[in-house]
């Protein structure tokens, strides 16, 4: 077992994890953060996306021991002051959610994008979400939602 100290959604956790434990297992099975989804487990689909030190990474390809000393944000950690994050509101408003399975990963990838580039072009939005697959929406509504969220965030909403 490995003892790790990791900040998850602004709360520091001292955890004992198996050497071969993946971050997605720790988040879901130890901490009950079920917004991070299991799917391809090969790094192709993006539904297990988390922010690791602000960068969108795939929790199915990270050993929990390597998260020691780092900061992780999951979809449960981005809502602000009890309300939804601007990205979440824009996804709802624009119908960028159908089955919803890809949505946590999409929103976290979009957050990483907007944190680094507050005014992305549509091409940059598509590029920033290139690691996240959606089988329902056809992506158009998702790009619309991120574009609108970018404006809302700039307007301070």
């Amino acid at each position, binding site marked *: 077992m*490995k003892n790790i100290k990791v900040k998850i959604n602004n709360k520091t956790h001292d955890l004992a994890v*198996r*050497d*071969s*434990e*993946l971050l*997605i*297992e720790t988040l879901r*099975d130890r901490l009950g953060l079920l917004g991070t989804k299991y799917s391809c*487990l*090969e*790094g*192709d689909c*993006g539904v297990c*996306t988390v922010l*690791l030190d602000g*960068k*969108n*990474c*795939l929790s*199915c*390809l*990270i*050993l929990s*021991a*390597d998260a*020691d000393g780092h900061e992780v944000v999951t979809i449960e950690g981005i809502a602000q002051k009890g309300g939804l994050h601007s990205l979440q509101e824009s996804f709802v408003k624009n119908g960028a959610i159908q089955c919803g399975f890809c949505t946590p990963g999409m929103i976290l*990838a979009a957050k*990483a994008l907007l944190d680094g580039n507050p005014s992305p072009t549509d091409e940059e939005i598509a*590029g*920033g*979400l*290139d*690691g996240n*697959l959606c089988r329902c929406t056809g992506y158009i509504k998702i790009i619309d939602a991120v574009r609108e969220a970018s404006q809302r965030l700039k307007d301070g909403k």
Partner: protein
Amino acid sequence: MGLLKDFKYYTPATLKEALGLLKNARYPLVLGGGTLSLNHLKKAAKYPSDVVGLKKVSVLRGIKDLKGAVAIGTMTTIAEICASGIIRKNFPSLVEACSKSATTPIRNMATIGGNVASRFFWVDLPAVLISLGAKVSIATAGRQRVVSIQEFLGSKPPKKFILTKVVIPKSDCLSFYFRHTKTMVVDVPSLALAFFASLKKGKLSGVVLVVNTTVSFPVKLKEVAAAMEDRHPKEVSLKSVTQALNKDVEKLRLDEYRVGCLATDLESLLGIFSAVI
């Protein structure tokens, strides 16, 4: 048991410690960014007893501007290389290869060392690194040596090694990277071509073209390079390049699709020559 079978995971802080762990392990695996190795482990029949992670070995990270060369620590991520001002200034073809490689989250995690050490045919960076004349430092317990990337890939890998840095010589060069994919879903190239040359008195010099066929390690297009060598870029004709390509592909046994991709890339390259140079 979880998604991975049990193994002992070590997270050394120094290279010396990492090499010591490797030396003493029965059947070890070195873990870089993890995007290739951890995936491989999920399906592996042969399983490591010990995994040595390199994420805490700080000496393996970062990009240094040396006199006449740039050194990239092997734990530097593809995204970090892409964003580096030093790399952007000196090696545009490497930036192109990095920016097209895989997807954003994979680029945030995957490392240049893993791209080379994994010895997968279809990864993006070896072809462009060979075209740029890059060398790699290989450390084993008690020994360190430097070889070209081509030599590293073309020979049997040493036992229990760690790649420590990739060094690329700087030169006033032209470098381009062309990449084809058949699908955007699993974004690996189906073919890629890296070009490098210097301009001496307005003529192409030291021309290197390396093709990543994705079915073998990258190979040089020697006939095409010879057809361009010592010529003014605008004097290189499509006819001579196409004839040379036909000679090169005879040895490569490429299918029609890949030969077509290469012909398109070379035509684009000549277009760049006439438009820019």
